[in-house]
């Protein structure tokens, strides 16, 4: 996503422009947003980051006019939206918030179909769209369509929230700390999924986050704001990391910026190793002889759809007659679009010094080892010197 975004690319997004936008809350000395000007190119993802109270959320909410700007213009594809009816405007801008913000008394399908319903789509079209989107965010429509939000986990609710934001195919999508309310492992998965959705849809996304790592991972550009929503730096993650504009930015991205380069590189860019694999249900004796013949001590277990399920040492496997289907969720799997930083996280809980890597539809691609990653980092450091 960092590499592919350019203005020439055709996409379903729209160009977004803020011109000298000001918001002053009554009773406060300084404006919350003091003259923000900014252009977001079509199909780009821009991450708004900054310390709390810097006006990043206020800026976001002025784009769909949940907060009315005092002055300035906001243009979508050159058209000034401050003159539009705000209710109609909001139907044409996706809005995803922390925790999903699902309406608890409506089913998943009704939540996702909310905006199509407001736009008076016919039933069949809405139902088709709902299923399509649930599928896209990784929820089986047959299972989840008729559930209520309280019957979903936090991560699932957030997925539905993303689906709802995309339902009416809006050119611009606003996200307010979209993954702030879920645990780190779920967050990483949701980020990966958003990246693959964005790879396909190329929306114009404005996303507020307080997490600089998330900004570096997801953003084509990062907007770092200081108090009053004054721009400290607005540039690509690579540039922000390599040459922070001033001390404020340098402090904000933190001292580990060398390490943060890890969040710019994807697992898929490195060479994967391919240890022996076996299928659930195979006779253990055959597997053991095959793996030992290859001179290895462990084996990756795949299921019938080639998804990795487990990574076992032979001595553990030898307790069974056929390869067992594991009953617990794996934590040592990363998507090929995951960052090296995510991969290192996953490796920490692995006893094999590596993480299994999956491609589209969770298919097994190979294994990324700790040694590969460290060798890569050292290589880069030498280059830098």
């Amino acid at each position, binding site marked *: 996503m960092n590499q592919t975004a350019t203005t020439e690319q055709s996409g379903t997004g729209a160009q977004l422009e803020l011109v000298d936008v000001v918001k002053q809350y009554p009773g406060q000395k300084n404006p919350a947003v003091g003259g923000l000007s900014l252009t977001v190119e079509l199909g780009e993802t821009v991450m708004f980051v900054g310390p709390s109270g810097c006006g990043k959320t206020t800026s976001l909410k002025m784009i769909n006019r949940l907060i009315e700007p005092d002055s300035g213009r906001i243009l979508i594809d050159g058209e000034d939206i401050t003159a539009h009816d705000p209710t109609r405007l*909001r139907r044409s801008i996706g809005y995803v918030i922390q925790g999903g913000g699902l309406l*608890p*008394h409506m089913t998943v399908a009704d939540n996702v179909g909310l905006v199509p319903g407001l736009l008076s789509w016919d039933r069949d079209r809405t139902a088709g769209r709902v299923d399509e989107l649930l599928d896209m965010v990784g929820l089986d429509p047959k299972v989840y369509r008729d559930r209520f939000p309280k019957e979903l986990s936090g991560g699932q609710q957030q997925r539905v929230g993303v689906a709802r934001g995309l339902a009416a195919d809006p050119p611009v999508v606003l996200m307010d700390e979209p993954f702030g309310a879920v645990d780190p492992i779920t967050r990483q998965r949701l980020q990966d999924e958003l990246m693959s959705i964005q790879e396909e849809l190329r929306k114009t996304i404005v996303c507020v986050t307080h997490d600089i790592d998330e900004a570096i991972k997801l953003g084509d550009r990062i907007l770092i704001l200081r108090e009053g929503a004054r721009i400290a730096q607005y540039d690509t993650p690579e540039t922000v990391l390599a040459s922070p504009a001033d001390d404020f930015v340098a402090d904000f991205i933190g001292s580990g910026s060398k390490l943060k380069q890890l969040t710019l590189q994807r697992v898929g860019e490195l060479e994967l190793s391919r240890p022996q694999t076996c299928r659930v249900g195979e006779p253990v004796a055959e597997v053991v002889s095959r793996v030992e013949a290859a001179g290895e001590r462990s084996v990756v277990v795949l299921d019938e759809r080639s998804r990795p399920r487990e990574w076992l040492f032979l001595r553990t496997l030898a307790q069974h007659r056929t390869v067992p289907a594991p009953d617990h969720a794996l934590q040592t799997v990363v998507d090929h679009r995951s960052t090296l930083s995510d991969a290192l996280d996953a490796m920490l809980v692995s006893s094999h010094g590596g993480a299994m890597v999956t491609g589209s539809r969770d298919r097994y691609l190979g294994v990324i080892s700790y040694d590969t990653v460290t060798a890569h980092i050292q290589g880069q450091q030498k280059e830098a010197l």
Partner: protein
Amino acid sequence: MVQFIDARWTDILFQSYQHFSLVVQSLLLATVVAVALAALVTSREGLAPVANTVSAVGLTIPSFALLGLLLPLVGIGAVPAVLLVTFYAALPVLRNTVVGLQGVDAGLVEAARGQGMSDAAVFWRVRLPLAWPVVMTGVRVSAQMSMGVAAIAAYALGPGLGTYIFTGLAQAGGANALNSALVGTVGIVLLALVLDAVLVLLSRLTTPEGITV
């Protein structure tokens, strides 16, 4: 006692029906008025405390006194009865609806507006459904209270079981005074229990599925 009831069986049933009907119709009217008022009150900053004070003060007005004030204005009969019951029934519904609407998560309301719902849509499709269980609790409180208030309405020649109570009071010491008062009182208690059961059922049926616990 048995004789007393036996002799007036059809009249008792008729008055019970009238009593029940008075309460249900007034309750319905009161709920509509109260929800409308609550919607208005919660949409403007600073009006909600006013509404709460009004409902608290309103409930302290003795119903007899209010009836006395109404009679010169609207005369006797069913009209003052309906006005009286509706006035008292509206107060708990108003208070509960205000509390219920204010209890709806502001973030959720903003999320709904952010999707492009109009203020009317947000009210009918988000705020009211989510506040509904609290509203219905108010309706149940109102129903119980209205049963008693409706008895007072009989003083203005309104319909209902209150007639028996006032007859009993008027003939105090007389042969059937106690029977009359008892029939009125027990009848009202029974009606109140029936209405409450109906409302509990109604509340269950009308509460959106996703927010039941």
